[in-house]
């Protein structure tokens, strides 16, 4: 990692190192190395380099004096390098965008620290911040009624209580009932999620807040097992496992959105803007639903069993319409004639 550090990146580190030590008067080598993400050896190299800086004119002198005897760093002289360099546009923006996003997270009851910090950083960043405000990268998190659930989850998290919830699983079109020991409230890919130990699945699961049908905080202590590992959300929310079924779909130009919405193992461009995608899934039920929704804009190519399943589902669905087509058409709320329905 550090082998890839450029001269300017190292310069950045050196310019921060001097004020870091000075603002703390005395600071340990080990903790400084951790703060800067370098080894102690690299840190000592940095300190030596700083100490060796020499200016030759008008008279030769060494502007920086420091020591690190006994593992404690002290900077006794540093000319005008005592303060860090001001924030660059990218740096100010990265923090301000993140803070403005935090302010949007549902379930925060006290946003005053956030607004105070945003104001202070904007003031400190000066011009750099004004650019970020004009051209802001902004984050818009849909609440979809999640605010109330988020507040309940927050309560459960701080009080260490178990949750009972009814949760909608669209892939199976099921309302499920489950007890969950909450672990984290996350915002991933712009949506709020609850991460918790699901007692029904006996595993760590992520639940989208906009799919929660109802939620109760139980009078039972939350006790996720000691070995419950948080999900590494940066690896993506859906990770195929070796036992998953590979599904091959062909999409028309109108069906290309599928490749954007679902994690695909491979995406191949065909002629006329068509796509061939391969998905892996433990449960093909949702692919059947997807194929029905896509109509002629998406076709299942493999596995053969799913091809048959989709055709059967479409045939059965159409049969309902055929039976109904002879019956009197109804208007909303008023059924004029009894209709027979085939099964």
């Amino acid at each position, binding site marked *: 990692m550090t082998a890839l550090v450029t*001269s300017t990146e190292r310069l950045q580190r050196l310019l921060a190192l001097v004020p870091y030590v000075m603002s703390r008067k005395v600071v340990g080598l080990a903790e400084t190395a951790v703060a800067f993400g370098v080894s102690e050896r690299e840190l000592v190299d940095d300190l030596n380099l700083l100490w060796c800086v020499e200016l030759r004119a008008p008279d030769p002198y060494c502007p920086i004096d420091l020591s690190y005897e006994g593992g404690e760093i002290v900077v006794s002289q540093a000319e005008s390098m005592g303060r860090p360099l001001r924030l660059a546009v990218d740096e100010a923006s990265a923090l301000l965008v993140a803070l403005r996003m935090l302010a949007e997270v549902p379930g925060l009851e006290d946003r005053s620290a956030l607004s105070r910090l945003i104001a202070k950083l904007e003031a400190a960043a000066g011009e750099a911040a004004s650019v970020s405000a004009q051209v802001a990268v902004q984050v818009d998190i849909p609440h979809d009624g999640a605010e109330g659930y988020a507040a309940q989850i927050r309560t459960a998290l701080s009080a260490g209580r178990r949750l009972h919830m009814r949760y909608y699983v669209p892939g199976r079109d099921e309302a499920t009932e489950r007890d969950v020991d909450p672990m984290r409230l996350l915002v991933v890919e712009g949506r709020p999620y609850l991460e918790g130990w699901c007692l029904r699945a006996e595993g760590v699961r992520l639940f989208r807040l906009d799919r929660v049908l109802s939620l109760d905080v139980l009078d039972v202590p939350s006790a996720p097992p000691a070995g419950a590992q948080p999900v590494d959300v940066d690896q993506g929310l859906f990770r195929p496992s070796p036992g998953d079924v590979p599904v091959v779909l062909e999409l028309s130009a109108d069906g290309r959105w599928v490749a954007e919405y679902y994690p695909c193992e491979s995406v191949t461009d065909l002629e006329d803007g068509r796509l061939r995608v391969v998905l892996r899934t433990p449960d093909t039920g949702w692919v059947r639903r997807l194929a029905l929704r896509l*109509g002629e804009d998406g076709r299942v190519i493999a596995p053969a069993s799913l091809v048959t399943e989709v055709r059967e589902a479409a045939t059965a669905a159409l049969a309902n319409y055929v039976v109904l087509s002879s019956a009197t058409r109804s208007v909303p709320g008023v059924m004029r004639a009894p209709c027979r329905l085939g099964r």
Partner: protein
Amino acid sequence: MSKRKTERLLGLVVCLLSTRRYLTAEQIREAVPGYPEPDDLFKRMFERDKEDLRDLGVPLETGVNHPFDEDPGYRIRQQAYELPELRLEADEAAVLGLAARVWQRAELAGAAAGALLKLRAAGIEADPKTLGDDERSPVPQGIEPHLGTPEPAFGPLWEAVRDRRPVTFSYRAAGRSDPQRRELEPWGVVNRHGRWYVAGWDRGRNATRVFRLSRIAGPVKFCGPAGRVTVPDGADVREIVRDWDSAPAQEHTALLRVRTGAGVGLRRHAVSVQADDSAEGWDLVTTRFGDVSWFADFAASFGSDAVVLDPPDLREAVIRRLKGVLA
């Protein structure tokens, strides 16, 4: 990485910070060790160094000490260089630590880490542990928002927006088979529902347009110098993207027959659900919808568990979808 270059750049910064007068290139060459003897080599290296410092955000000033001076001089004004005094309360510092983690391994993660390092260098401890026992973090433990930037277009568009540069890219609009060349004056980049968008002035269409980053095919290229883009007063990119992305108002009503115990997704947002007296094992579900085509797709996904009764155009659209599966 070259240690000698780092030493030279560091010397240059210290030298220019400690002078009030502008120093000419020649004076700098005498003061800072590490520059080569031949004039042309020195000039080239000095130019590179100035550029490197400016890229780092070091405010390098050019000027003369006296109106009759021929050669320009350089200096770094301490006030322009330094991060202004900044004091944070414990709860603010706790939030700062969280904000720095939002980007994780995404595009601006390095910038966030750089900012945090500078703030730490100013004596700030961005760590929730600094809160006293009786203080509560304003952000409860367990709240961890993340931002990802998987689209390769994010980096160049962010730079374009930052530097106000027009860009060109090829874009595959929804449902179009061929990507088209677009020229855009970008005003802002917005994340909505976890997807990235860029909004701005489309030069080809002479209109405000929104593009989804995941539909940009191939590289984003700059097609003009920095500062060429003017964001109109009152332009709110977030609003523009929200309008573009929003589902149409739910002004239509649909009546469906839904098998009892099934079609949870249709019942979730229903206006009313009642048992169907005329068909045992079925319920009548009334629900609102905005777009016929979208809702027809949705209703079709329930297969034989749902039958659209009304309106007729919705019913026809579902039948078309289902026949399309068998075509």
